[in-house]
């Protein structure tokens, strides 16, 4: 087996005086989609945020290796430029910063980091518009403030749009499926599918099976009380759908 794209070893994390991750071990090889499932409060979102570098999470121990680098040593913006993308569960509204500008600034930050020239404005717009078509988003969104006045579903589509434009190597999507109706779920799933490729990895953090009907995972992990209590193939998600989480919680206790 080759070195995984993402490798987490015994990761322990605290917020305030509460330990939210109590020793996570996880390997995600390039080319694979992993689902992280679990009940509310199990630490799923904490894991996503720690990977993206959100302030307020104190790492007590363990390591996260991403493409051979110590991910935890990088600032949030450096992780992004290195190809880590977090799709937010609750994307913020930023009135006054327009979507087009943010997309371009984000792409150029990564390109400068790689020593490449900035994108040509015209080519870039053409590319973004093509991706927007895929996400069934109106072009008028580009000139609006980031997520400003967007519905819940539009915000999630916008997250996926950003992901498609940035083409990350590791995408961590935190409950991207929550609050989506059936049609939006299909659009978002299709967007995620287009990113699947041998050199990328996708981590889907989700509460429900339904997203996995559209984006079939290679592996499924169950996170409960800050630990991964069970890992398996796609069939594990189906079992969870049938039996709920309680039986695993009893095992973990």
């Amino acid at each position: 087996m080759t070195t995984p794209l993402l490798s987490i070893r015994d990761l322990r994390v605290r917020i305030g005086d509460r330990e939210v991750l109590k020793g996570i071990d996880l390997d995600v090889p390039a080319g694979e989609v992993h689902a992280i499932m679990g009940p509310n409060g199990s630490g799923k979102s904490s894991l996503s945020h720690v990977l993206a570098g959100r302030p307020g999470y104190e790492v007590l121990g363990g390591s996260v290796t991403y493409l051979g680098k110590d991910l935890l040593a990088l600032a949030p913006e450096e992780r992004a430029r290195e190809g880590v993308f977090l799709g937010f569960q609750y994307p913020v509204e930023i009135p006054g910063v327009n979507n087009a500008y943010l997309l371009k600034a984000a792409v150029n930050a990564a390109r400068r980091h790689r020593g490449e020239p900035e994108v040509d404005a015209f080519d870039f717009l053409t590319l973004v518009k093509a991706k927007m078509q895929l996400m069934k988003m109106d072009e008028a969104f580009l000139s609006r403030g980031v997520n400003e006045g967007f519905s819940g579903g539009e915000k999630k589509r916008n997250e996926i749009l950003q992901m498609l434009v940035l083409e990350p190597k590791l995408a961590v999507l935190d409950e991207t499926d929550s609050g989506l109706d059936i049609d939006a779920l299909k659009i978002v799933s299709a967007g995620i599918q287009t990113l699947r490729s041998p050199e990328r990895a996708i981590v889907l953090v989700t509460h429900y099976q339904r997203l996995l009907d559209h984006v079939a995972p290679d592996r499924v992990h169950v996170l409960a009380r800050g630990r991964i209590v069970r890992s398996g193939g796609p069939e594990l998600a189906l079992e969870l759908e049938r039996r709920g989480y309680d039986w695993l919680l009893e095992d973990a206790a």
Partner: protein
Amino acid sequence: MSANFATRLLEEHAAFAATLPRAQGEASERRHALGKASAAGLPPLRDDAWRYSNLRAVEKARLAPATPLTPEQALASASRLLPQPLPDFARLVFVNGQLLRPLSGEPADLVGARLELSSGHTEGVLAPTADERFAWLNAAFATDIARLAVSGTLQLEVLYLTVPTPNAGATYPRLEVAVGNHARLVLVERHLGGGGPAALNAPSVQIEVGAAGVAEHYRLQASAPDAVIMDSLLATLAAGARYELTQLSWGAASARHSTRIQLSGEGASLLVNGMSLSDANRVLDTAIQVEHVARRTSSEQTLRAIANGRSRIAFNSRVEVASSAGGADSRQSLKGLLGSPGAEVNLRPQLEISTDEVKASHGATTGALDDNMLFYLLSRGLDPDTARKLLEWAFIEDVMSRIRIPALRRQVELASVDCLGNATALEALR
């Protein structure tokens, strides 16, 4: 302190009046205003309504007007302060309160309006109170008064330029505007330059918008960094009138803007956009009093402040809804952003309602940048400095977006970029 000020005021005024033709110096309106100004004196230091105003600077400032410049001197000093002209706007240029004819065109050329230059002021429908006491000081000293009566449609820019004079005297720009019934005025009023730290600038503007008239009024205070400004604005709105005031303040060492607007006719509506940007030790103090007197009147205020360095910004916005103003609608949104630990923003929305039949809302928040917004931008690869500057810029965007003259908006955007030291915003503007 006040007694000394009053004595000095009367002495300096007597010497000044003696230099005027007798009819002007002794004019009863001038005597009346002088009486009011000297009786009011300066606000006591502990007066809450003036807590953020630099009254010490006024106390020390010379009150007699600046020595008149020769037209050559005025022209030479004005040219370096002149902004790019706005397309399709008539222009009046005043230097230290005197009209500079070579840069102003002929008053008779104004279409849709009549301009009169007068040596004596007229007190408007809405008389000043102690809250706008510097309007009395202005009326006691002003000599080149622009009185504008708009009957059709007019787009006018009025530039008040201030330059140093040997006597470091004060300047008293004064503009009296009547927008007729169904008439329409777009007015851009700018205050630029400065006479030095000891020279007081006390502009006074009166606006009366007639029935179903519309006035769109942009006021830019972009004075020299050592200027001291005590500004007054009084406005009344007749039935169905619309007044949109955009007040932008980022210059001067200290500036006080005292504004009072009365919605006296049924269905009159008011929009106020205010933005103050400050750094270093600048103090920008804005007091706005809105009076709903007639039925079905509405007012909406959006006030934004960004304070950096050790500067201070205050917005004191008071709305009064009289018992006669049933069906009134009032909204106030005040937001302050602290760009550094030593800066201060003080926001005070106040609401006094004397009728049950009213819709009113107000909100005021001051703080540092939103951590969630900041992290969102970092998570997309933007560096922290760029992200912060971008959010500062975004903070004032709702005021900017209401500037409806594209050329002016561009000028204001560039000036704000400069003021905030914000190269990121400049890139975002491209």
